């Protein structure tokens, strides 16, 4: 599952990128609504968020952009937003409008399951799954809570830290993924830090899906033109997809 910051590097290229990742084998796409204070994000996504905000991106524009795409995506769309922009928009309006444009799931990194009941209730009315993040530091009690309250899949955070491509990931990661899978029927998708095919292969041995954000934005930054961006991201997604053994979409689309 690739992560793209809404409206980055610009609105037009962003929409083309959505089609590009779809065409190159992404099973789902996560769209990040930019926020001025992205606490869970490392430097790469911080910079992309800032640029998107400078381009005038908002919650409303993100939803409008998805709505006005010439052809609907065939893969599910998961929206990621910090709570304040969607709280400000109005939870009910947000879920209704997101549902109208075909959004399937919602990740809100600064909502903890203890505080997420209202969001879950509203999202459920509009058929949107709320996905919680499970961290390596989550206690047994919290793991149960997160697995019980997550819908669609569970987002397993690979390491203690913020988003951003890393050269290496924790050694016991697969063991931990396995342990979580034994406790739940939910597909387990792993994100944070994944930057290359060999890491994806390794994690793919136990995870149901991998989420890649900063590595893609790093690629986008290095290109000089829209066509270069599209082909470079397309190649990256293809390579990643090949690295993963299973090819089915575990998400109930």
């Amino acid at each position, binding site marked *: 599952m690739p992560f793209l910051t809404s409206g980055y590097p610009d609105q037009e290229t962003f929409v083309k990128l959505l089609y590009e990742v779809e065409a190159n084998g992404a099973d789902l796409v996560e769209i990040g609504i930019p*926020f*001025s*204070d*992205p*606490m*869970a994000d*490392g430097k790469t996504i*911080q910079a992309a968020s800032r640029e998107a*905000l400078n381009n005038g991106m*908002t*919650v*409303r524009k993100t939803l409008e952009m998805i709505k006005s795409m010439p052809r609907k995506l065939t893969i599910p769309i998961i929206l990621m937003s*910090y*709570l*304040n*922009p*969607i*709280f*400000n*928009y109005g939870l009910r309006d947000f879920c209704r409008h997101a549902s109208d444009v075909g959004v399937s799931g919602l990740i809100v990194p*600064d909502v903890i399951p203890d505080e997420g009941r209202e969001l879950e209730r509203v999202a459920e009315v509009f058929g949107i799954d709320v996905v919680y993040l499970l*961290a390596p*530091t989550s206690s047994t009690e919290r793991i149960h809570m997160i697995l019980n309250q997550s819908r669609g899949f569970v987002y397993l955070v690979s390491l*203690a*830290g*913020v988003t951003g491509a890393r050269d290496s990931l924790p050694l016991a990661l697969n063991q931990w993924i396995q342990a979580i899978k034994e406790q739940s029927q939910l597909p387990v998708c792993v994100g944070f830090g994944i930057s290359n095919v060999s890491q994806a292969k390794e994690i793919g041995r136990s995870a149901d899906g991998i989420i890649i954000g900063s590595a893609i934005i790093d690629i986008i930054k290095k290109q000089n033109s829209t066509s270069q961006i599209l082909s470079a991201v397309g190649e990256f997604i293809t390579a990643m997809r090949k690295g993963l053994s299973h090819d089915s979409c575990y998400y109930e689309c």
Partner: protein
Amino acid sequence: MLQNYSGRPTPLYYAKRLSDKWDGAKIYLKREDLNHTGAHKINNCLGQALLASRMNKKRIIAETGAGQHGVAVATVCCLFGMNCTVYMGSEDMVRQAPNVDRMKLLKAEVIPVTSGTGTLKDATNEAIRDWVTNIENTHYIIGSTVGPHPYPLMVRDFQSVIGREARSQMLEFEDCLPDAVVACVGGGSNSLGMFHDFVNDIGVCLYGVESAGEGLATENHAATLNKGKPGILHGSLSYLLQTADGQILPTHSIAAGLDYPGVGPEHSAFKDSGRVKYESISDSEALKAFIELSETEGIIPALESSFALAFAKKLAGSMNPSENILICLSGRGDKDLANENVARLINQRTQTRERTTDVHNIKNICRLHTNRPESLDALSDLGLSGSGNFC
């Protein structure tokens, strides 16, 4: 530790000269500036350092705006033998330079934060990012009544010693409670610490004073409770300065410690219930109060505390001498002398004083030589053309 290390209880001081000058209510100052490290921030840091020690965390991180919290954290880290990293907005590092040096002397690593607006909220973001990365060995000492639960309550409880002491000191001095209690509000720790013990004293009016910066009609202020609307930042729901799209707005205050777009959630509750009135004071009003307390009582207040003083001045004018105002003097102002606005003001005051001295000397000369008109020219050279009639 509060007693022998920090110097508690801090005195309650009846500011007679200031009361006379303001010609209204009697002014009492709770001297939190006399704490070790020069502000109330140490109250919370000692408490949280004990907690970190109990949790066996060897590394401490913190955010700081004015640097007072950073200095207090660096101080307790020396005392407890812990490693210390402080995140500070790059803009704040410039305007609060003396505190940066103090932190460095106390072995803290001070990391400049350039992301966002380079002020307190961005330093807080960076501290949170560090915390989630190093949580195994690191405790995050948040300096104000903000952040995720239980920080707002914990910080308030560690700061409530201010109001507890002040309340009993007032009873001792005046045999009654104050009519009004005034404290500045950035994130809100000195004010909540001061208010907490007075909340159930219905007859006591509580005033929180925000920074109106260059004016509430401009975009350059930090008056969250006066101008914000509810939102979520740093893990709590509270009033927030934000755009129509829910993005956090940059703030402005001459006082770095008030330069924050959020506010403690308990303050938001007090605003909604009406128990505390939230007022605002502009940068220039605060600067006047800064000078006034310095010159009248020989006490140099922190710029942050000067916002409380400036509002208390207005309030005092509408009260009578049988009534009392208790002001939380949350910190000392030495750190602010490097601030360009303060430095400029001090310069102006010095020049005015020199000029006044010159006028005084020339007046004496005039008295001796009333037949020498060139003395009057000298006065006019000093820009005091109307002063000829002194002679």
